[in-house]
């Protein structure tokens, strides 16, 4: 028997109970594969989740798993990471769980740079509660709670993350094995809080909401796969490129052959560029959009703790306080 674990070793014995055809199945497959590829160990890997369809994830992975309460997974995972910084902690959340009820925890986890891998399955809808519009639903989304169309402006997960001070933001499509696999490996290798938005297709309540850019037949024209240090090219023959328009401060599509020198080269450490890429509608930017490593919260916490959480004295050394007296 080989020591090297395979994707199968990370599948739990539990029967998977998502709707047939749900994008979560593809994500689960990519995650178990990525775990095997990065050499993860079940006993030191923990999946923490909140509430929602995505939150069932921990039951289906052969690792430690904690299915907590709605929106709070990053908070629980922070406490866990402080108690044992050696653990490989993943948080699985959704657009409602992570950006609505749990938005505050996500914000603070990102700014603190707590060492966990946050996977946000964005399907722009509340699935488990049967189809209400979510904080990422576009204006005009009709749903049981918005029969004449929603009126609220959606939140952009990427802009939210960068505004919160996130140091790793990536995007992938549920069924894009190569793209998602690559992003998961990079998210895992990042020391602090890595935040990955996965476009997930809810076939029951919001089918094909991402189809304009996820459909394979158009993928070459609609997807820009970013790689650090490489030019931003797309199209069937990589004949289109992305240029910065300094008059409008926006990104625009150009003919790459006509003006090759104008094509931008991806710099994942550039936060301004990251913001422009997040907002670009067509093509849609995928891959690691922003990465700027820094000391993780748990490392800073232990570095500041004089005994690194070890007990070096007894209560008896402290119990007398600043002054005491003896009664005979």
């Amino acid at each position, binding site marked *: 028997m080989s020591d090297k674990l395979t994707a199968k070793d990370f599948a739990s014995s539990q029967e998977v109970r998502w709707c047939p055809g749900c994008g979560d199945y593809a994500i689960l497959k990519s995650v178990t594969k990525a775990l095997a590829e990065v050499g993860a160990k079940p006993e030191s890997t923990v999946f923490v989740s909140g509430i929602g369809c995505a939150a069932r994830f921990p039951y289906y992975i052969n690792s430690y798993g904690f299915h907590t309460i709605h929106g709070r997974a990053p908070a629980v995972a922070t406490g866990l990471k402080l108690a044992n910084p050696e653990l490989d902690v993943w948080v699985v959340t959704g657009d409602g769980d992570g950006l609505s009820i749990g938005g505050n925890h996500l914000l603070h986890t990102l700014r603190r740079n707590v060492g966990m891998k946050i996977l946000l399955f964005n399907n722009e809808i509340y699935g488990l509660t049967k189809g209400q519009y979510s904080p990422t639903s576009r204006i005009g989304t009709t749903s049981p709670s918005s029969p004449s169309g929603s009126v609220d402006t959606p939140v952009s997960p990427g802009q939210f993350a960068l505004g919160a001070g996130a140091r790793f933001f990536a995007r992938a499509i549920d069924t894009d094995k190569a793209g998602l696999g690559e992003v998961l490996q990079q998210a895992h290798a990042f020391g602090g809080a890595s935040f990955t938005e996965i476009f997930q297709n809810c076939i029951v309540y919001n089918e094909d909401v991402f189809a304009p850019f996820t459909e394979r037949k158009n993928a070459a024209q609609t997807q820009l796969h970013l790689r650090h240090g490489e030019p931003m090219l797309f199209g069937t023959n990589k004949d289109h490129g992305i240029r910065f328009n300094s008059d409008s401060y926006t990104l625009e599509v150009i003919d790459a052959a006509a003006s090759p020198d104008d094509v931008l080269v991806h710099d994942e450490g550039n936060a301004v560029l990251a913001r422009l890429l997040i907002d670009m509608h067509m093509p849609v930017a995928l891959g690691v959009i922003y990465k700027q490593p820094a000391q993780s919260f748990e490392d800073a916490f232990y570095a500041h703790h004089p005994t690194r959480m070890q007990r070096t*004295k*007894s*209560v008896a050394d402290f*119990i007398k306080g600043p002054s005491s007296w003896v009664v005979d």
Partner: protein
Amino acid sequence: MRFAGDSGDGIQLLGSQFAVSTALAGRDFATFPDYPAEIRAPTGTTFGVSAYQINLGGDPITTAGDAPDVLVAFNPAALKVSLPMLKPGSLILVNNDSFTERNLTKAGYAEDPRVSNALDDFQLVAADIGHLNLEAIKAFGLSKSEGGRCKNFWALGLLLWMFDRELAPIEAWITRRMAGQPTMRDANVTALRAGHAFGETAELAASLPQLSVEKADMTSGEYRSITGAEALALGIAAAGELADRSVMFCSYPITPSSPLLHRLTRLQELGVGTYQAEDEIAAICAAIGASYGGMIGVTSSSGPGIALKTEAMGLAVIAELPLVIVNWQRGGPSTGLPTKTEQSDLYQAVYGRNGDTPIPVLAAASSEDCFVMAIEAVRIALRHMTPVILLADGYLSNAAEPWKIPDIDSIPTIDSHAVPEEAGDVTPQRLAFQREAESLGRPWIAPGMPDLVHRTGGLEKDLDSGHISYDPDNHQRMTDLRQAKVDAVADFIPEQVIEHGDASGDLVVVGWGSTYGPIYQAARMTGTSFVHLRHINPLPRNLAELLGRFDKILVPEMNNGQLTTLLRDRLGVSPIAFNKVAGQPFQIAELVARIEIESGGKTP
């Protein structure tokens, strides 16, 4: 004695240092800091008055006293607010310099009370404290406002003379505390000595009585002064030591809970970590995460913050994780009276969650009891693998009292259920939820342990396999199990004792929490039997039998009758409720009066 002045006058510092000197002189004492919710309320106003009350004496002291015998008022507003509390004949020391027309108007005095007949029933000593202080420290070249800040030490010097106390310990404290500011340090020491010298030599001396208080009859041993927040912090750290686990304390700032966070940040060498979370919910969730990771997770808050934590408490219950939740109760509802004390979160603690979600509830009786009960809370949490709520309150957080320093080695260690070394044929999922028969506690398995990989969470689990289960009969069994686990706590805790008085009779007074002090005194003065509860849920197993020996049960509480309801619910008894919801502790006199009414007017 009561010290009162503007929030910026350094009253709390003056009071706490007087408490230290009282302790060092071997007298028993109890204190009651009483300060406004505003950080710096407008100066000179009655609502901006900050006060510190201390009761000292030879008899055992358990409260900060009903009516002060000595008042030190730094301005007219402080006098105005405190005057109704005083007994006739009390001594009042006022700072002349603050009795300006403007300050008198702000305090609502049409006439200067020093010259009107308003103070005829009292002994008034009016000293130019502000002026004399500035004169004494002139040599240091301080600005008027810097110099003015020394006047509380001038006043303390005078009080130390009045009570025949040593200056040295206070001087040592100033020297230590202000080591980094030599000029202020020397000015404060000078002001202290000047106040003391003033008492000794000034012309006023004839009217200033030198008061001596007998030494308290305390059992022999080493003592210190301690507040509830200090005691609870030490108790949590001690529990970590007794359980041989690190402690992760996660909380969010809220009055009056924050002193515990501040205290614990100073105990890092005891394996204690503190984490200030983004909100109350994150604080308890992080504590749960830490417990899941194998450390003792503790969170603390006050009523409104506890309300926010309730959903997460349910998670800790269903996931069978140890956790301690401290509630420093304050006046409610909503924001209510943040700096005032109340006992109105008992329903919340015992009944206040969605689902059938029983949690053990404890209550600390005094500042020093916070130490004992913190250890007890961790002990129960680890033994039964359950969250535990520890109720304290705003009064205990700040109130100081002498504490006979315990020997940590004499306290039994805290055990948790051993993690099985060999899983054998049992799946790790099943093993994680195999419960010990007596306590129903499960092994504390944390991520990182090999061969024990399992899943847990907020969904109902199968009683045997530990997997998710929607089976109706299983949910009934699990609901029964969670209740049985909390009921089982009663098999491990001590039987209820009678705190004072006969073991049977006409009337028993039953208290819980910080009302211990005044009820104890009232029971002593009236010769009434007194039972004080530290375990609220479950109640001690002999309580029904014990209370059954009395004809009447009187329950004084700083709420609208919550323990009364609980006793009726759990024991089927019909107590008489005596409720006070005024943001202030009970006065002994009002308890005595009520006890006399209930005992038919006769004081045994």
